[in-house]
């Protein structure tokens, strides 16, 4: 090249030299002056130099440009390398000869680097975009379109990318966690909603519409989670509130059940409620357990039971009141303010008074009255006696006034006897009154209050009575004086005609019973007497003679029945049975006391069934059913092989010796109760007879025990 260029230069020089030579020749020919020649040569030289200088400048310019380009490219490459975190170009270019070549080697490198950079930026943008999206989701910010992702182009290193990736990963994890959390919350809400009987979808949609969707992506922003948590909190609070409510209700329910012995069938309905009475909040999981309906149901039941309780309470209060009244009546006390207006049922109904309080009050009163009654008992007995005596007295007065009293009618001797007795009693009255007065005064002194009898003061009554009696006594005295005068007259007559025989008073009891076809008058008297006896429980102790009378009458009735006074005895016996029935209640009451623990209504049919039942019951059959059927139709021959009725009756009579000689078809259960309780052993004679019957029965039916039935042991 150089040679080529130097040849070129030489050629240029030779061309120029030849041209100068030509110019010399021309000038020589022309004869140009030397001056001119110098000027032209100088100009020529100047012009040539100028041209050269221009070209050199141009070439310089081109070189600088190239150099600048190369520098820029290199700088860019190193920039990119630095930003991408790569070591700066150590793949440094192979040695180059000149600038153009260098530029040519650098520019593809640059292109490459630029491409890489774009790629990296794209990667960054992808990651950052995802990050932004996730964090937006988490923060709950709506995505803003057109919000271009800004990437810091100065730092595009792989490490940074790695960091961004881990950040993204973390965010993704967090997203998953949040989704799980949301799912958990939703599940919790779901279970709470089912327990509380609320619409789950509605509840959840109110928080975020996406939450309802089962498979769709669920919103997991902070806001949503917070709202979910708040919702759970509020639901839980609601649940606890309701739970407390329902537990309160349940305990009320249990209390009421317990109080009223509610049957199991009725309880069954609310068992699911009551079994949760002690459950803690998380234990209650049944659907609709705490729904408003359920609570309402339970509430209704409680209020129903409460109403029932109040009505029962009312009954009890009424019963107690009646009892109190009865007791007061029996002890002749006036229930002054015991049962004042505010004890009334109306007050209780209106809620002015707690029935329990009322009951307590009445109970208190009852116990007070009982104590009082006990202290008054002795005096009351005496009063009773005294009143009876007074009655006798008034009867006697009446009787004495009857002028026909000595007419020998039917039963007149009985009346006479009664009169005699009455006289004896009347004679005792002053003493009685005295004792009574003494006792009463003592009582009053001891108590510091007045002894009231049916509202009046007993002492004043007694005083009245004594003054009345005194008046009567005076009257009688006067009469006696008159009589004495009269008697003197009669005595004078007696002296003339002889004395009258006195009527024989001593009647024999035996004659009385045998002939006592009893006039109406006597019957009513007897009835009256017994009526007086009746209220006294200890009749037999206080009035042995009357008791004997009573027994006598019984036997009398028996006698009459057998001798067949049809009309008369019918009336008598009905009367007697009526009386027996009246006397029965204390006995049954006692019976009830004995078996108080085995609760049974006194008139319930079991005793009847037991009484009329036979001992041979086929136990293979359902026992209770049989018994039930028997109870319903005791006389009927059941298909289970019960013995026929005649043997049944005979059986009964043989086995249980009757305490009462009179069969009482109207009141079998009351009579049978004492027999059941105090069974007298069968006498040998009857048991023998019974055995024969048993054998006959055994032919019909053989009894087996449970074990025999189970073991399949049967007599051939």
């Amino acid at each position, binding site marked *: 090249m150089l040679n080529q260029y130097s040849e070129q230069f030489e050629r240029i020089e030779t061309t120029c030299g030849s041209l100068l030579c030509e110019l010399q020749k021309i000038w020589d020919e022309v004869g140009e002056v030397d001056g001119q020649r110098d000027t032209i040569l100088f100009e020529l030289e100047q012009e040539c130099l100028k041209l050269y200088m221009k070209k050199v400048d141009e070439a310089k310019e081109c070189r600088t440009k190239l150099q600048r380009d190369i520098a820029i490219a290199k700088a860019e490459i190193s920039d990119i390398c630095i930003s991408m975190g790569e070591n700066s170009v150590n793949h440094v270019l192979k040695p180059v000869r000149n600038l153009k070549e260098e530029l040519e080697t650098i520019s593809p490198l640059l292109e490459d680097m630029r491409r890489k950079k774009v790629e990296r930026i794209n990667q960054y943008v992808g990651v950052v975009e995802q990050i932004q999206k996730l964090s937006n989701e988490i923060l709950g910010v709506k995505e803003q379109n057109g919000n271009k992702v800004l990437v810091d182009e100065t730092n595009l290193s792989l490490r940074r990318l790695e960091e961004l990736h881990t950040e993204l990963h973390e965010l993704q994890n967090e997203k998953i966690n949040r989704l799980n959390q949301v799912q958990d919350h939703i599940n919790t809400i779901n279970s709470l909603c089912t327990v509380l009987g609320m619409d789950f979808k509605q509840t959840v949609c109110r928080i975020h519409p996406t939450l309802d969707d089962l498979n769709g992506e669920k919103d997991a922003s902070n806001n949503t989670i917070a709202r979910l948590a708040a919702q759970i909190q509020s639901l839980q609070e609601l649940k606890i509130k309701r739970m407390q409510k329902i537990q309160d209700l349940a305990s009320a329910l249990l209390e009421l059940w317990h109080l009223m012995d509610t049957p199991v069938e009725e309880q069954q309905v609310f068992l699911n409620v009551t079994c949760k009475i002690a459950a803690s909040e998380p234990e209650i999981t049944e659907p609709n357990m705490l729904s408003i309906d359920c609570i309402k149901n339970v509430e209704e039941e409680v209020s129903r039971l409460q109403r029932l309780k109040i009505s029962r309470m009312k009954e009890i209060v009424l019963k107690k009141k009646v009892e109190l009244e009865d007791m007061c009546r029996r002890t002749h006390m006036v229930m002054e303010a015991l049962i004042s207006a505010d004890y009334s049922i109306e007050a209780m109904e209106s809620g002015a008074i707690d029935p329990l309080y009322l009951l307590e009050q009445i109970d208190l009163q009852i116990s007070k009255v009982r104590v009082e009654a006990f202290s008054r008992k002795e005096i009351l007995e005496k009063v009773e006696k005294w009143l009876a005596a007074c009655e006798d007295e008034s009867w006697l007065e009446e009787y004495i006034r009857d002028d026909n009293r000595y007419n020998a009618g039917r039963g007149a001797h009985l009346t006479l006897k009664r009169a005699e007795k009455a006289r004896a009693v009347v004679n005792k009255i002053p003493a009685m009154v005295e004792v009574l007065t003494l006792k009463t005064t003592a009582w009053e002194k001891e108590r510091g209050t007045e002894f009231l009898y049916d509202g009046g003061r007993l002492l004043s009554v007694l005083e009245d009575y004594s003054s009345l009696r005194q008046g009567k006594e005076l009257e009688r005295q006067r009469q006696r004086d008159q009589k004495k005068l009269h008697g003197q007259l009669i005595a004078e007559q007696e002296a003339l005609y002889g004395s009258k025989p006195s009527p024989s008073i001593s009647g024999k009891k035996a004659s009385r019973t045998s002939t006592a076809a009893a006039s109406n008058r006597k019957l009513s008297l007897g009835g009256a007497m017994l009526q007086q006896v009746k209220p006294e429980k200890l009749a037999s102790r206080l009035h042995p003679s009357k008791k004997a009378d009573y027994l006598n009458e019984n036997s009398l009735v028996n006698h009459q029945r057998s001798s067949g006074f049809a009309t008369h005895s019918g009336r008598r016996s009905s009367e007697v049975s009526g009386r027996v029935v009246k006397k029965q209640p204390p006995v049954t009451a006692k019976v009830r006391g004995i078996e108080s623990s085995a609760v049974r209504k006194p008139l319930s049919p*079991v005793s009847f069934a037991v009484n009329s039942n036979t001992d041979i019951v086929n136990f293979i059959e359902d026992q*209770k059913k049989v018994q039930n059927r028997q109870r319903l139709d005791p006389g009927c021959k059941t298909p289970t092989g019960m013995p026929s009725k005649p043997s049944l009756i005979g059986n009964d009579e043989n086995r249980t010796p009757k305490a009462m000689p009179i069969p009482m078809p109207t009141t079998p259960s009351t009579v049978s109760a004492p027999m059941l*309780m105090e*069974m007298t052993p069968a006498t040998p004679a009857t048991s023998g007879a019974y055995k024969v019957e048993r054998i006959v029965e055994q032919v019909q039916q053989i*009894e087996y025990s449970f074990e*025999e039935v189970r073991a399949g042991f049967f007599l051939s």
Partner: protein
Amino acid sequence: MTSVHPPAAPGRELSNPPTDGISNLRFSNHSDHLLVSSWDKTVRLYDASANSLRGEFMHGGPVLDCCFHDDSSGFSASADNTVRRIVFSYGKEDILGRHDAPVRCIEYSYAAGQVITGSWDKTLKCWDPRGASGQERTFVGTYPQPERVYLLSLVGNRLVVATAGRHVNVYDLQKMSQPEERRESSLKYQTRCVRCYPNGTGYALSSVEGELQWSSLISQRPVKPKSMYAFKCCRKSQAELDIVYPVNAIALHPVYGTFATRGCDGFVNMWDGNNKKRLYQYSKYPTSIAALSFSRDVRLLAVASSYTFEEGDKPHEPDAIFVRSVNEIEVKPKPKVYPNPPA
């Protein structure tokens, strides 16, 4: 179920209960060992205080009754007509003898050293367990009864036998040839349980219809003028209908003379016979109560809660044995309360 009144623990339930109905259980007179016979053809020996099964003895048929001899051996009455002697330590059992029908009940008399068995073949047999094995050498005597023997009860030398047809015979073990007393149960229905008073002056009977009767022996009668009475228990009023339950057995308190009854209603009641009052009702057991026994020191009461087949074959609660401790207050008679001091 309901948590109305969380039922007071019905007592400790023994582990490994029999797999079928329990026919009887008895406490030993010397320890807290409990002998249980069952329809699952076994006799089991438990240590009630340790709640452990000490032994299990298989039989050829359902075992209807069992009793202790001493702490090391006992006797059993089986439905395969045999009377067996069981030696607990060896697990050995030998046959004392046989009846012609299932043996329903068995008692051992310490006074006479004899085993008395009652069977549905209408006989009572006595055995002497001290004789060597084999029926010929152990057999003492056989005593015909009017009906199938259902129950025996024994105190000292006095033996009360209850049979079908409500017969009750009272024997003196020293004079077995003739019953001391022949009686009819005055209860109306089949006898379900009989127990002698611990003092030997009388016995208590119960029937399938929930009645219970107290009865003194004739020879002892002058002691107590009111020697006989009956009352009802195990009854439940439901609606219009009174349900009566069989009284399955009676356990008498050896000191106070109070007694416990238990029946098919699943309740155990303590009664004070003299005052005719119920003292205590234990909480309900899952099913019928088949048997009941006080331990020797009356600290424990064993209760067999087991369906007694009173309503035929039907599904029922699993059989279980409960051992509960007895409070003094539950069994001690309450002092008589006079509402009004006698005027």
